[in-house]
Each structure stands twice: as structure tokens, then as C-alpha cells.
């Protein structure tokens, strides 16, 4: 059986001093990337780049090779394009975040965690319960609002989600709120009506605040396979997704599909979810993520 040795080490050992990366090693690399849901195309692209650089930059030593592999993968992860110097949430008030994604990925939970994070930064947070469809969705968000101790705007089940979003923004403006987070119902990206509804929510919010939403956060389940590509594509075309959150990374799934997505759509991953508690949200760390792809292969 294969050892549980770190892949970086294995690769380094096998290629040290060579100008050609040997096939066994590439097979190993292929297997670990694919097992992390990176996907065939992206994996082949990474392997090609490694081969090319190994050929160009002769006399590779171990650490150089590690660095090449890491830097090639890192370069695929889009960086947050927001000006780093200024906190966008400080600059715009209220800063409106609309959270979207397919069913059950962790949108509502992520909102609870974000509310907790912003609140701890001393910001005034308001939640908008625009999932008026799923059974007890409003109750679920209400419990999160109570847990974190932030206000929530809601209507009855079945109400027009765009109208809930509008109400929430209105309340935010009159109550001096810093951050508004709008929950939306889970929807599969191949359902045209439901995708149009998202565009409508957006349009209606813009009647009050022309540049809202300032952030559209697409939540992806870390255990999702290649279908996440389709999700990113359709949600992006319906709502101009600006950032991604990758959830459930406390499990054994690696979430490698975001590599190709981030690269292709130039959308940064901003947050990761690592549990069900309000403290289980982390800011996405590209380097750590790349390392984690090869852990325990």
C-alpha cells in the first residue's frame, strides 16, 4: 500500500535533480488532485504546467519543485479584487450582501456565522429573511438572529422575496445599519424561473440603493463535485457573483473544484465553513487551502 507521506515530499524526492518529472509521480499527482475534486481538465492543466517548468528550469532541487507546484496551483485562485487597503464594508453604508446557492449548501448557516463575525468587528448587522419558500426557513434564520443577537426583517412564508429584501434595505437605511445580509431560498441553477427571481430581487433592491448588492456571495458545498462549475456559471450569469464561500470543509471532502472555478470565472473564494457553530467560519487562506489538497492522500 501507498504510504500516507505528504505528496509534496514524494514528488520532490522523485524529481530532485532531474529535468523530466517521472511518470509515477505524475500519476500520483493526478490521483490526489482528482480525488480532491479538482477535475480532469484542471488537473491536466496543472500537470502540463509542472512538466513545462520542470523542463525549462533545469537543476531543480526539492524545495524549488515544491514551490513550483504550489505556485502553479496558487496562481489559479483568483485574488480578492477589492482594494486591500480599504475595508469595503467600512466604505459603503449599508454594505449589502446577498447570499445565493443551490439547495442545502449552507447559505443560512453561513449568514449566521457572517453576522457573528461582523458583529464582533463592532458593526451593526441586519438580516433579511428572503427565503420565504423552504419549510421553516424564516424560523431557522430567526434562531440565528437570536443566537448572534442581531435584528432581522421578515414577512410571512410565501411572501415575495424581493419585497422582503426591499424592506430590509429600507430598515437598514433608517436604522444606521453597517452590514445587511440577505438570505435567499436554495435553487438549482437549471431552473430558469427561480434564477430570474434572483435577478428580480437584485433589481428591486437597486430601486432603493442603486449599487446594491455590493457583494453577491455564492455558497458552494465543499463536497460537491464537478457540478459546481455549472452552479458558478449559472449563478454568475443571473446575479454577477462577486465572491464564493466554500462550506463543510470540516469533513473529508477537499473542495478542489473551486480551483478551476476561481480560475475560469475570476471569482475569489472569501470564506470557508468548517462546522455548524457560529464561530466555524474562516477567512479563506489560499496557501493553507493548497496545502490541504494534498493532506492524507
Amino acid at each position, binding site marked *: 500500500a501507498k504510504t500516507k507521506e505528504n505528496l509534496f515530499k514524494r514528488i520532490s524526492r522523485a524529481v530532485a535533480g532531474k529535468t523530466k518529472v517521472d511518470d509515477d509521480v505524475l500519476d500520483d499527482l493526478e*490521483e490526489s488532485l*482528482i*480525488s*480532491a*475534486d479538482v*477535475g*480532469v*481538465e484542471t488537473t491536466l492543466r496543472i500537470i502540463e504546467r509542472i512538466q513545462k517548468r520542470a523542463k525549462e528550469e533545469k537543476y531543480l532541487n526539492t524545495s524549488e519543485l515544491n514551490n513550483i507546484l504550489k505556485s502553479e496551483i496558487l496562481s489559479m485562485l483568483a485574488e480578492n479584487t477589492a482594494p486591500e487597503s480599504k475595508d469595503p464594508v467600512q466604505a459603503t453604508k449599508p454594505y449589502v450582501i446577498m447570499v445565493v446557492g*443551490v*439547495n*442545502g*449548501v*449552507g447559505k443560512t448557516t453561513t449568514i*449566521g456565522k457572517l453576522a457573528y463575525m461582523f458583529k464582533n468587528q463592532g458593526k451593526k448587522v441586519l438580516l433579511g429573511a428572503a427565503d420565504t*419558500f*423552504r*419549510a*421553516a*426557513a424564516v*424560523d*431557522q434564520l*430567526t*434562531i*440565528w438572529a437570536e*443566537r448572534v443577537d442581531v435584528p432581522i426583517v421578515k414577512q410571512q412564508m410565501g411572501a415575495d422575496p424581493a419585497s422582503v429584501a426591499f424592506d430590509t434595505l429600507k430598515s437598514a437605511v433608517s436604522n444606521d445599519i453597517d452590514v445587511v445580509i440577505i438570505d435567499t431560498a436554495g435553487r*438549482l*441553477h*437549471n*431552473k430558469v424561473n427561480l434564477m430570474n427571481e434572483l435577478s428580480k430581487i437584485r433589481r428591486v433592491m437597486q430601486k432603493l440603493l442603486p449599487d446594491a448588492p455590493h457583494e453577491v456571495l455564492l455558497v458552494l*458545498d465543499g*463536497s*460537491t*463535485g*464537478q*457540478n*459546481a*462549475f*455549472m452552479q458558478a456559471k449559472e449563478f454568475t450569469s443571473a446575479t454577477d457573483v462577486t465572491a464564493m464561500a466554500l462550506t*463543510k470543509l*470540516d*469533513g*473529508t*471532502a*477537499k473542495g478542489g*473544484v473551486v480551483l478551476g472555478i476561481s480560475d*475560469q470565472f475570476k471569482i475569489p473564494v472569501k470564506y470557508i465553513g468548517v462546522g*455548524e457553530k457560529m464561530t466555524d467560519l474562516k477567512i479563506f487562506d489560499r496557501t493553507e487551502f493548497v496545502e490541504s489538497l494534498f493532506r492524507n492522500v
Partner: protein
Amino acid sequence: MFENLTDRLERSFKILKGEGKITEINVAETVKDIRKALIEADVNYKVAKSFTDDIKRKALGMNVLTAVKPGQLMVKLVHDELAALMGGKAEDIDLSGNPSVILIAGLQGSGKTTFSAKLANYLKSKKGKHPMLVAGDVYRPAAIEQLKVLGEQINVPVFTIPDSKDPVSIAKDAIKEAKKNGQDVVIIDTAGRLAIDEEMMKEVESIKKAVSPNEILFVVDSMTGQDAVNTAKEFNDRLDFNGVVLTKLDGDTRGGAALSIRAVVDKPIKFVSTGEKMETLDVFHPDRMADRILGMGDIVSLVEKA
């Protein structure tokens, strides 16, 4: 990027064209393409490898069939093998208990609560049963409320113990209550849990021990990627479940997880869930699933006509 297997094999048909029989070399080429397509459909890497190794062996053994066009033969072979692997004898769920107890388990957000209610609805409307739903998720915010709302929609009673944090005693009490009221099926919804969460896995084992279910169903999101095998294997090791439920098949996922799970735990897929509404529950069709994984709508029927 999303080139499907049909396109791929059409390309391979070209490679094969003119060759009267399948040779080792062009089989190897085609098999590689098929493997890639399976992996892109989220079939587990190792499962795809051993599946295509088998295909290769079988294809080479079919040398005799030189009359049939080899490319088409390959497509049909792959499709039929896929369907056979995922199919087998269709097994109904066991409703022989009094009451019959059905335990539902799976990862977070996979669709357990929705499926529990759909199953109750199905048993009630199609099988003339008198089901009861049990709210055994004491953790997720508003999980109990969610099941109650669904129960109301389908007019099925929902058993809860409002402030209890103990799903084992909730399940036990529910069965007593069902007996008392003449309910003949008890469906126990449980909290989502990760396979590596030792405490939570122990909890669901204790529920099983306490109620000896007739049927344990593992609910899995059909969009799941490579990790499906780890999760399914772990849940099966712990629970020895009877069947699998594939959810969210109303999306456009290829659903390779279906093949991976079947290959790894060898338990039948009993239901597929295709929407958020209560009626969107279907029995599993291995043939359709094979088509779906291969992303090839009508190609097989075309081949069969040829």
C-alpha cells in the same frame, strides 16, 4: 470543457473506423476516454479505474463480433455494464414490522428531512399506510419546525419532544406512541452528520440499537463528488444500511456518485428525489442513470437500432 462522452466516443469512433475488430491499442485509447468521462461525471477515481479495466477485458474478449462496428459496441458495452452495476433486482422497502421503523441518515443538507416527508406521503397515498414522522434532529435550528410544516402539508402526524436533546429516547417514545395510535410506519428523521464526527456517528448507532429499524436509508446529494465513497463506506460500516436515496436529481448533475456508492457498499439505490415538492419522489431506474452518467441521451437507442 464540458465535452460529454458522446462527443468523445465519436472522436474515438474515428480512431476505430475502418478497423474490422477491436485491437488492444484502440481499446486502450477508448477506455482512457471513457475513464476521463466517468471521472468528469464525478465517479470516484478508483472506481472509474477498476470499472474501465473490466470494460477493457470484456471488450477484448468480444473480438468475435467483428460484424458490429467496434465504437458502437463499446458504447453499448459501457452503458450496459453501468446499468447492470447500479441495478440488479429492484428491492422494495421492508414494511413488515408493526410498526415498521425506517431510519433516515446522511450528511448535512443532503435532503433527509424533505425525503422523510416525501416517503411518508408516498407510503400514505400509494401504499395505504398510516405513517408517523419523528423529529429526531435536535440540533439544527428549526429542524423540528421544518418537519412539522412538511407533516402538515401532507397531513401526517409528527412526533416531537420539544425540549429533549436525546434522539434515542425520542425515537423509542415515538414507537410506543405509534403503537398506541395504530400508526403502521414510523419514519425517523435525524440530524445531518459528518462520517468523521465520532460522537454523532455513535449517536445514530445508538438510535439504531434502540429501535431495530426494518430499514435504514442513507440519503446522499447526487451532486457529491469524489468524497461520496468515503462517506458511504463509513455510514455503511457503522449502520449497515439497507438502501440509498439519491436527491436533487432535478438538477443537471451527472450523478457519478451513484456508481461510486454502489461499487463501494453494494447496497441498492431505492429512491430518487427530484424536487422540493412532496410528490417529487421516484423509484430508481439504473438504465436512465447510466445514460445520465455517460451524458448521452439517445445514443444507446440509436446504437440498438443500428
